[in-house]
């Protein structure tokens, strides 16, 4: 009886170990950081509004990994000739995941950038909201460049290549 009980317990333990092992095989799949799920190039429409005047163009936003939970993005170059605003890096957009949607937020990023003639210009990008859903991304941001007395209000809608 005692042996039977021991055998039963041993089988039960084996079954437990096997079952735990099978569970473990799922958990052992590599965990994809939230940032890794969204990095990439997104192409679509950017609308920049300056003091109520909107300008629309087709642009590509390149999201790169900052950390497991944050991404950086290059806001694309705007304008031509002497009116050019160079591409502006924005770093440290903090990501949170909810269901199939990943939302990025950044209150303010201050940086400097060199223009084509080598002049260094300060810029600020604030009120950044990014939402990734499937292969779509939308971005809302406010950017202020150099001595321009006005801010650009930016919107971008793109899809991942």
């Amino acid at each position: 009886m005692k042996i039977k009980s021991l055998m039963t317990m041993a089988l039960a333990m084996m079954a437990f170990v096997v079952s735990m092992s099978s569970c473990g095989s799922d958990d052992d799949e590599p965990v994809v950081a939230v940032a890794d799920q969204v990095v990439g190039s997104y192409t679509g429409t950017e609308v920049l509004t300056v003091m109520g005047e909107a300008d629309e163009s087709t642009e590509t936003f390149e999201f790169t990994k900052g950390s497991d939970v944050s991404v950086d993005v290059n806001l694309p170059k705007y304008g031509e000739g002497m009116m050019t605003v160079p591409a502006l890096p924005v770093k440290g957009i903090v990501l949170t995941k909810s269901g199939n949607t990943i939302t990025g937020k950044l209150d303010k990023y201050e940086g400097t950038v060199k223009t084509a003639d080598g002049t260094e210009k300060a810029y600020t990008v604030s009120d950044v909201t990014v939402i990734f859903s499937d292969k779509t991304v939308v971005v809302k941001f406010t950017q202020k460049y150099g001595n321009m007395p006005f801010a650009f209000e930016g919107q971008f809608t793109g899809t991942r290549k």
Partner: protein
Amino acid sequence: MVTAYLTNRILQSLLAGVALAMPAIPLSAQSFRDSVELEPVVVTASHSPKALKDAPVVTRLITLHDIKITDATNIQDMLTQEIPGLEFGFAMSQETSLNMSGFGGNAVLFLVDGERMAGETMDNVDYNRMNLDNVGRIEIVKGASSALYGSNAVGGVINIISRENLEPWTANVNTRYNFFGHEWRNGASFSFNTKKWNSQTSFQHTKIDPVDLPKPYSSEEIAIELLKKAQGLPYDESVLNDDSNLSRLYGQKSYNVKERLTWRATDNLTLIGRGGYFFRTSERDTYDYHFNGYSAGLKGRYAWDFARYLELSYAYDQYDKANFQPDGTRTHDHDYSNRQQVAHALYHHSFGKNSLILGADYMHDYLSTYQFADNTSHAQDNIDGYAQFDWNITERLNIVGSVRYDYFSASAQKAFTERLAVVYKFPWMTFRANYASGFRAPTLKEMYMHFDMGNMGYMLRGNPDLKPEKSHNFNIAIERTNRIRNSGFLDGRYNFTIMGYCNIFDKRITTIDGGTYEGMESALYWNEDGITVWGMDFSMGHIWDCGFSLKVNYSWMKETGKVYYSDFYQPRSHSMTWRVGYDHHFSRHYALDAALSGRYQGKPQSGRKDVDQGYTIWKLMLQHHVWHGLTVITAIDNLFNYKPKSYYYCSPLTTGTSFSVGLSVDLDKM
């Protein structure tokens, strides 16, 4: 009825008795009442002192009481609250623009004690220089006045007259805090008066923090609607369209000090010296603007007798602008300096009830600015001569005629302007009819500008061949002032004025497409076809003996012709200001001066739907006179919490109801 009447009379007698027994806690409304009873004197309409009721042209007077009860910091605050048909807005770079009854800011001439000011922000002088700490009254003459004041007096003249205290000495310190922008205003003034000397000194400091204007929607709300749109789901398009022109009001600080010294050397000779310094910083995100103003003047007046006097004066005014980086380094890429030197001569001769004025001026105008090619400078001289004859034909009929000739050296332009004003006093009302011409000479900036706008590849080009702007103003007005007695509650003094006008404005200087210039798109200063502005102004006031007062001002205007609508202001056909006041001594140690005021701006005449479609803003002011010389001032601005949906250049700069509290101490009365 009789009982009610008697009760009222007894009550009034009791109140009068109480008032007599009261300590001398001054009510500023009392000075208002006095000024009405004593018939105030104005100078702007005729270049010489004249009772308001006798002025040849309708003159809107802002009294010392108005200035105190509105608690305005500078002329912009004051005019916004008092004058309908006048609206300040912002331009790019948050420089202030002005529109008065269809005329842009550069068609309105601002004077301080009759003197021009140098410099400009957007389209006129820096309004912050005109603080109200030492101002006694403000006179506004709408319509052209170039026959007396020369260039820029096309749409109106606003003359700020300094106060001259006649007490042996006065001293005041005051402070006020406004929760909007955490604004501080601190001031001090001192005056003394002897038989020979009179001195007025004032100092004011203001500081306001940046104010982030609320956006209609958060970035997250916008992003969510963007995502819905991208996914083909129903979404709200209005959330995605942001028409706001402004998102942040820059913080600023200012210092303003003024001195005015009068020496009555003899019974015949009076000399007046004055000086002032102004400093303001506008604190931007990446750099600061610094503004400096320097002014000085000397005036001598020799009076042979009551009939004849001669005035000679010299005035200097300088206004500088420069940009500084946060570390204090001057960038030198936005240097600007405007210096004006003016010499005046004026001779006044009375012949009985009639009088003659002969005058001549010389002005040297120098401008150095980054907006000229190679940061160079330009200058021009203006010489003028004028004459005015004030002919009192009968006790009832008065005719005033003025002519003036101006010459400008840089453009070799001449201007001949004239005015004819007729006043006829019926027993029950006064009738006025007036024709006046006005002009504005092209400025040095408009003639010589060569400016790549913010290095953005867009050139603004001056035009040395510009002609002066011209205007012809016709107006007629009726006015009645009277006292009501023995009518119970209505007892008091009232007045009303109705004025209709037509302004024909031609050769306006504006910018047109200048084609490609040096490989860039450009705009060129140009004389454009004119417009005609039709309008009607109505004002009324009633001051009850029981302590209440009411003022209502309404303005209607309509522009026809080649009308351009600037983004920076939106002329409105209907506008109105009003104020209900009450002053009363409640006890030996407490008196109240209260005012509930408001302003209404109607729909833009342009028909634009994307800007404010009219708004009303109310303000409640309470001045508590709690002890000898001690006054506590409280105010609730935007009483009913009006909030613009979006902030346009012409939106009222409010984020909702705001509160302010202040303290004023008259040391000489303690």
